[in-house]
């Protein structure tokens, strides 16, 4: 069996899925790392759904976090004021986000790139400020309480049978639910992108008029992108916040949006999987970079950094980077945009997946041409008996 590059990709995917399933065991059920994994998946869903809207369809919307917050706040308010069960309010939140996404999608139809960005920034900021101001309705700056899900006992028993550590910590069920949703949403988006709709998205991104001339329904395509991405973002937001227990309006500020965008760009804004992997990778890196363990003598040389915003903990033997890890991340973002505009992760994925086929076809074509050339040479070197030109023509 010849070794094909795509086997590497399948192997990596398998490894990743295994890691996803066994992650709680890998981190020894430590609550901190469970929470980090949980958040990483949350950001991965946000990054990949944003890349669907921005990378595939070309609509650079900054309202993504607003949709996330819209879903979460809707769910929380329905539970608080109408007494709905969290599962029902989740569905309602997703549907409402889909409707609002559709409206925003329609409003943005006439707006080109920069204007679309500005409009979605305006929408996101208005939403955040109104939520922050209406204290009686939304809890204002202090946030809204989001009650946890009650998992039915039947499900609990099944889960306990598969994962004996299900009850070890409250974060374990939340991690698995988020992991399940991560897998499902990526799968759905992947199917969408591989279908005709994926082609429509990319066609609309490249040249709307040409796409329309070829029969793509541009309006529906653009609005569909908004609806799908906003619904997925809302669902991610709802699940995340019901498990965390609280949502605050400042989670919808533009700074958080930039973080998601940065993750998607570094992963690869035009590749769903790249964006998701990029987000996970960056989230974990940012957590690891919070504290850099160094030998104490080295730390003693670096004490001057305390004046520059770092913290040195000689007893624990770590250098706390505080805000500087984000500075490094920002620099990475700018450099990636400048030199590797397709991202850092998605070129690797695409190299593993696609180039092989092209190379194989090229090799086969060359082999056939070589075979034909040999026939011609044989004809030429042997004494020519047939003078009929049509016999020597191939």
């Amino acid at each position, binding site marked *: 069996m010849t070794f094909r590059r795509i086997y590497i990709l399948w192997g990596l995917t398998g490894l990743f899925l295994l890691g996803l399933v066994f992650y709680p065991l890998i981190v020894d059920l430590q609550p901190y790392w469970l929470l980090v994994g949980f958040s990483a998946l949350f950001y991965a869903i946000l990054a990949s759904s944003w890349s669907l809207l*921005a990378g595939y369809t*070309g609509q*650079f919307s900054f309202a993504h976090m607003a949709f996330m917050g819209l879903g979460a706040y809707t769910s929380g308010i329905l539970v608080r*004021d109408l007494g709905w069960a969290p599962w029902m309010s989740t569905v309602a939140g997703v549907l409402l986000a889909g409707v609002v996404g559709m409206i925003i999608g329609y*409003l943005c139809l*006439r*707006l*080109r*790139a*920069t*204007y679309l*960005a*500005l*409009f979605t*920034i*305006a*929408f996101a*900021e*208005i939403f955040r*400020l*109104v939520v*922050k*101001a*209406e204290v*009686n*309705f939304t809890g204002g700056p202090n946030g809204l309480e989001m009650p946890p899900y009650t998992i039915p006992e039947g499900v609990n028993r099944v889960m306990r049978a598969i994962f004996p550590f299900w009850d070890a910590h409250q974060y374990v069920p939340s991690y698995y639910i988020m992991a399940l949703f991560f897998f499902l949403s990526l799968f759905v988006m992947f199917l969408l992108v591989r279908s005709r709709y994926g082609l429509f998205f990319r066609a609309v991104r490249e040249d709307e008029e040409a796409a329309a001339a070829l029969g793509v329904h541009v309006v529906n395509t653009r609005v569909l992108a908004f609806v799908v991405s906003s619904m997925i973002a809302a669902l991610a937001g709802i699940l995340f916040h019901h498990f965390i227990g609280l949502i605050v309006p400042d989670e919808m*500020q*533009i*700074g958080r949006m*930039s*973080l998601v*965008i*940065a993750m998607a*760009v570094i992963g690869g*804004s035009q590749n769903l999987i790249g964006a998701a992997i990029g987000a996970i990778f960056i989230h974990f890196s940012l957590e690891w970079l919070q504290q850099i363990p160094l030998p104490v003598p080295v730390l003693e040389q670096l004490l001057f950094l305390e004046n*520059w*915003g770092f913290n040195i903990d000689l007893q624990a033997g770590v250098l706390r980077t*505080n*805000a*500087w890890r*984000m*500075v490094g*991340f*920002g*620099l990475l*973002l*700018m450099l990636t*945009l*400048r030199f590797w*505009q*397709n991202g850092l992760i998605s070129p690797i994925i695409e190299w593993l997946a696609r180039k092989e086929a092209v190379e194989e076809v090229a090799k086969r074509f060359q082999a056939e041409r070589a075979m034909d050339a040999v026939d011609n040479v044989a004809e030429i070197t042997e004494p020519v008996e047939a003078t009929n030109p049509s016999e020597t023509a191939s």
Partner: protein
Amino acid sequence: MWLAPEVVPTLVLQVSATYIVRLLLEGLLIGVIYALMALGLTLIFSVLNIVSFAHGEFYMIGGYVVFLILRNWKGFPGLLAIFAAALVTFVIGAIFERLFLQPMAQGKVDRPNEYAILITFGLSFFLQFFVLGLMGPFPKKAPRFWSLPELDLGFLRMTRTTLFLGRIPLSAGRLFAALIALIALAAMLYFMYRTWTGWALQAVSQDRNAAAVVGINPLNMNTLAFALGGMLAGLAGAVLVTVFSWVPWVGITASAKSFVIIVLGGMGSIPGSLLGGIILGVVESLGTGLFPDPARAQAYRDVFGLIIFALVLLVKPTGLFGREL
């Protein structure tokens, strides 16, 4: 339910002419500074054809430069500190433009539209956290270095911190800031309309190729425009740091307001940005002053501009004086 009685306007607004005039004047004072900042953004757009999402961060840096100078050198003249802030933001703008925006102008970037939006966003991200790392998250306030002379002319009264026009109080800090902003605006307008370099900038904004034909280097003009734009934002921050308390994310709202103004006035139009700035200042002031629920009025201050913004984008994206994107 959340529709509590205080939402319904029960109070009869004691709206006197004095109150309205006071709101108008306050709006004008802040509007002039908004206009200065928006002028920078519109200049960047007119020459480079991009909206700089990092504009607020230049504003933020301008403020921090003044703060640092005044904190570390007690007797340093305030005007010189403002000048230093302008210089620093000019240099930062020029360096960033040369490194990251020139390739786009030279055609070396794959998807220029996407790049233009994201790269300035990246700069904004970087600068916010850079300053957060250096200065920390706690609010800073620069010491006031300007006070009014004591004066009492009946109708016009001045204490050290406030100017009274009749019964209308105006803060000295804001007055000073508006004054410097006016001088800077006047200087900028003189520069744009009465000097060769200013004409060169306008030429590039009108027609790049024609400007190149007559010997103007569009790439150098790009750098100059971006640096000048950043400088104007830095100036706005430098004059306001003694008035507002300063945190690394103070630029976010400033950016948002600049976007509102340039869209309202028309992207790329200088008179549009001036008029838009004044309009926004006055609308914000009147809106918060006359809001039916005083408890929430301040929280909604930023919303007025954003609503105007959204409406303009939907109804007439070119704004008052603008040209097509």
